[in-house]
């Protein structure tokens, strides 16, 4: 092994492939390695040679590849392969696991097996090992350094190491409920004054609620008992005044709280939606639309209820409990203690109930979500449902989920209906004790009748808020769950990060270069590898290849919907990761196979990428796109409203609107993703004509299945299995006799049939 190669490899090593190994492994290794042998890599893996879970270590030195297994604590050298025997290494991808193999002159040796948990490290190790092996398809020198390491997303919690919920940056294990509540309350900050006034009114309201009991005592002891007629009217007047004030405060406070709830939720909804728009494409492709929508609407709505109603209920109830306690103890300490007797029991059962109901509610919520998913699935696909006459099956699917939801809802109802009467029984038992002991006290003359009556009134007023607080427990749980989900969205950071020092270029020529680009959606499964090519300003690059070869992925990388794993993409010599994301996407125009038109007028849709475009510009763009004629022919012309997906227009018409949209945006780089493949031949000609106008002077990447549309390309790239299989002009490739020429011949024959 030449020193230069070892040095090159050493530059690539990092903590990912140089893990610490336990002492007993070190000891075993010390016996096996030669003196002066340099260790390059050490890697832990979790599957043994027999395919069981267990500890194993992989070691690569400048002289050998080795694997050590551990059997009940005894470490054994299981694989010991001199490096000069290794011709090639290969990484095998299986479901749920993978294997790293070394191939010699006479056999293949399995170095390690690994679960997907270890896959990212092994994948790194494999890429380095390829350079170590003697003849890695002769390309060990081709891959030059220069690519930055992929900024891997933090998938695990920094504090506890647990995997985080999908697309989330929040660790639910490390998140504290108190903090969550605090964060929710923080939304009240902009409305501090209203919140404080509301709180004060609430406090007054609670106090006023207790005064009647106190006045009743005066009424009985100081008015009725001594027969003091003169005091009757003022006392009744005071009672009337208290009730009136309470009603007034109730009205004002109620509205203030509702207003507050609505405002806060308004802010939150706007914030969540703004944030959603910022998130990377990966987020949306992983989540069902229904789920995202549920977070924006349902969860936030539940929070509104909580902030407007729940929070103030808690405040009122908590305050009431404290004040009543104080009044009870002040009036008669012993009786007060008796009154409080059932409280621990109530507290405990509330806690148990809360846990139970929370689990059930979660199940209800999940089933609700799954029900919504069925609807969200079947309604947009209603044409398919009907044309296959599967209405009954869809109804059945819905029914099934509905039943499962019903089951859980009934389970929740059973819990509720059992809990509250039991609760009532406990409080009733408490009241019996108070009645008994209180009556005795009055009859023995230790207490006046007025105090007893006040006690009994307060007692009922006391149990009620305690009960309500018990109910609050689950409401808070409910709201916190929703809050968590909403905050999860807010805390998700875009996977495609923007450097703070990102730049904008003054002028863009449109020179695009891919350098050794590797990309994978999942670690270890490369979708694109070793992609290198260059497109000069104004050139047209055709991309062909079987479906699944990575064509669409390649152009998506150009818009930075995803980041490359290795290598670089350059625009005018700048790494696109150094450019402002917004700026980059302004330079790129996309025409898709299935154009998406938004709900709005045709003019709005054309001007989507260039808001504020003049009617002149819109018409000019429409003309260039061969769309003007059919648009003016519409009853409402450019003001025609197009539906959710532009249902009103035909496929070819929608396509031309989307081309007009791209023309008006005037991008330097254009991506045509099978722009003409879903229309008839005549329309295709119209569209092709429009496209020809669009592509002139722009660097264009065109994905096409109909190879005839690519004849004018300056360069055609044939992708196969994520690699560039061939590259060249149409004529070159045709002469080359490779995959492209084969595809061309096939299509030529097909088109003969089509001519019929």
């Amino acid at each position, binding site marked *: 092994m030449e020193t230069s190669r070892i040095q090159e490899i050493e530059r690539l090593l990092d903590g990912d492939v140089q893990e610490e190994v336990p002492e007993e492994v070190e000891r075993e290794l010390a016996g096996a390695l030669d003196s002066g042998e340099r260790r390059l890599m050490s890697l832990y893996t979790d599957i043994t040679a027999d395919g069981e879970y267990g500890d194993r270590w992989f070691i690569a030195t400048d002289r050998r590849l080795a694997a050590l297994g551990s059997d009940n604590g005894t470490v054994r050298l299981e694989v010991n392969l001199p490096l000069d025997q290794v011709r090639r290494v290969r990484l095998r991808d299986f479901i749920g696991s993978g294997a790293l193999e070394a*191939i010699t002159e006479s056999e293949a040796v399995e170095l390690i097996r690994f679960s997907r948990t270890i896959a990212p490290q092994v994948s790194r190790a494999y890429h380095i090992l390829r350079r170590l092996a003697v003849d890695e398809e002769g390309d060990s020198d081709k891959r030059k350094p220069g690519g930055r390491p992929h900024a891997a997303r933090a998938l695990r919690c920094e504090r506890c190491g647990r995997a985080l919920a999908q697309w989330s940056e929040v660790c639910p294990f490390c998140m504290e409920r108190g903090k969550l509540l605090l964060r929710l309350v923080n939304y009240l900050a902009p409305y501090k004054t209203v919140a404080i006034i509301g709180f004060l009114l609430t406090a007054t309201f609670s106090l006023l609620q207790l005064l009647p009991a106190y006045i009743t005592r005066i009424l009985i002891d100081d008015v009725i008992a001594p027969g003091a007629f003169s005091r009757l009217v003022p006392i009744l007047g005071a009672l009337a005044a208290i009730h009136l004030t309470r009603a007034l405060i109730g009205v004002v406070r109620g509205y203030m709280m509702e207003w507050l709830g609505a405002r806060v939720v308004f802010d939150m909804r706007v914030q969540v939606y703004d944030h959603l728009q910022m998130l990377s494409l990966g987020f949306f492709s992983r989540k069902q639309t229904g789920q995202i929508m549920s977070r924006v609407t349902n969860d936030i709505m539940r929070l509104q209820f909580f902030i407007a109603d729940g929070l103030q209920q808690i405040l009122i109830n908590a305050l009431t409990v404290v004040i009543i306690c104080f009044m009870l103890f002040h009036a008669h300490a012993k009786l007060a203690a008796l009154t409080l007797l059932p409280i621990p029991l109530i507290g405990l059962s509330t806690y148990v109930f809360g846990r139970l109901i929370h689990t059930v509610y979660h199940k209800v919520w999940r089933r609700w979500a799954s029900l919504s998913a069925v609807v969200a699935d079947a309604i947009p696909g209603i044409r398919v449902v009907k044309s296959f006459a599967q209405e009954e099956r869809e109804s059945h699917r819905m029914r099934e989920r509905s039943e499962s939801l019903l089951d859980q809802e009934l389970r929740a109802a059973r819990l509720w209906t059992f809990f509250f009467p039991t609760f009532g029984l406990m409080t009733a038992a408490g009241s019996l004790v108070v009645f008994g002991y209180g009556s005795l006290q009055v009859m023995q003359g230790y207490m006046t009748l007025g105090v007893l009556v006040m006690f009994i009134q307060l007692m009922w007023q006391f149990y009620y808020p305690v009960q309500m607080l018990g109910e609050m427990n689950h409401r808070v749980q409910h709201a916190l769950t929703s809050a968590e989900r909403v905050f999860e969205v807010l805390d998700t950071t875009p996977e495609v990060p923007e450097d703070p020092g990102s730049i904008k270029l003054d002028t863009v020529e449109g020179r695009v270069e891919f350098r050794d680009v590797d990309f994978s959606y999942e670690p270890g499964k490369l979708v694109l590898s070793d992609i290198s090519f260059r497109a000069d300003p104004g050139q047209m690059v055709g991309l062909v290849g079987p479906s699944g070869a990575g064509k669409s992925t390649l152009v998506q990388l150009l818009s930075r919907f995803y980041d490359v794993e290795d290598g670089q993409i350059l625009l005018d010599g700048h790494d696109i990761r150094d450019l402002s994301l917004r700026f980059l996407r302004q330079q790129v125009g996309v025409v898709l196979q299935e154009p998406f038109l938004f709900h709005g007028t045709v003019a709005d849709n054309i001007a989507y990428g260039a808001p504020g475009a003049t009617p002149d510009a819109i018409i000019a763009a429409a003309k260039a796109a061969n769309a003007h004629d059919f648009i003016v022919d519409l009853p409402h012309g450019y003001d025609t409203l197009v539906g959710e997906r532009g249902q009103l227009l035909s496929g070819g018409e929608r396509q031309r609107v989307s081309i007009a949209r791209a023309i008006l945006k005037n991008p330097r780089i254009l991506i045509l993703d099978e722009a003409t493949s879903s229309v008839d031949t005549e329309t295709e000609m119209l569209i092709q004509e429009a496209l020809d106008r669009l592509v002139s002077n722009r660097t264009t990447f065109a994905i096409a299945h109909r190879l005839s549309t690519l004849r004018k390309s300056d360069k055609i790239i044939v992708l196969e299995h994520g690699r560039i299989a061939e590259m060249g002009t149409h004529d070159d490739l045709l002469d080359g006799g490779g995959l492209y020429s084969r595809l061309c011949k096939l299509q030529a024959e097909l088109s003969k049939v089509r001519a019929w």
Partner: protein
Amino acid sequence: MTEERSERGSGDGWEAELARLRLTDASTVRIWHDAFRRLHVQAEGQEEHVDVRPARAFPVTGAADYISFLDGDDREVLLIQNPGALDADSLAALRQALGRAYFVPKIVQILEIEDAHGAARWEVETDRGYRVFDVRDREDVRVIGGSRVLLQDADGNRFEIEDLFDLDDRSRRLLDKEI
């Protein structure tokens, strides 16, 4: 043309179509590994295919025991329906290859599930040994046909509970909260 259409409509027609699946009778097929750990497959009197990988047609539902053999370009070279008819050596080789291709340990006992709103840490005993894994999303725990449970952890590892009713009470109670 019309003839063919009517044939397709009838049950017999489908039988004929099935024959055209290029389904190979498993009893005529030999499967073995070579020193390069490559899988070979050959049907009697036909071409030998080297470096193929087996793929189950219904790996999740197990609706039928079709096993397809794919070459390096992911093209099917052979399809068999009942691997039970293979000779003993071939069956052993196939089992070994499938065992590698689908590493889906079966959970036999659930020791603990720490759940915090969807993200959960599972501690389990499987037929391949003890394992702790994190599930990122409740949707990664799927119940199939009422009693089979398929799981995928945060890293893409797969697990299976063959029949949740065969689990002990505690395991089932823990599982119940997740499904």
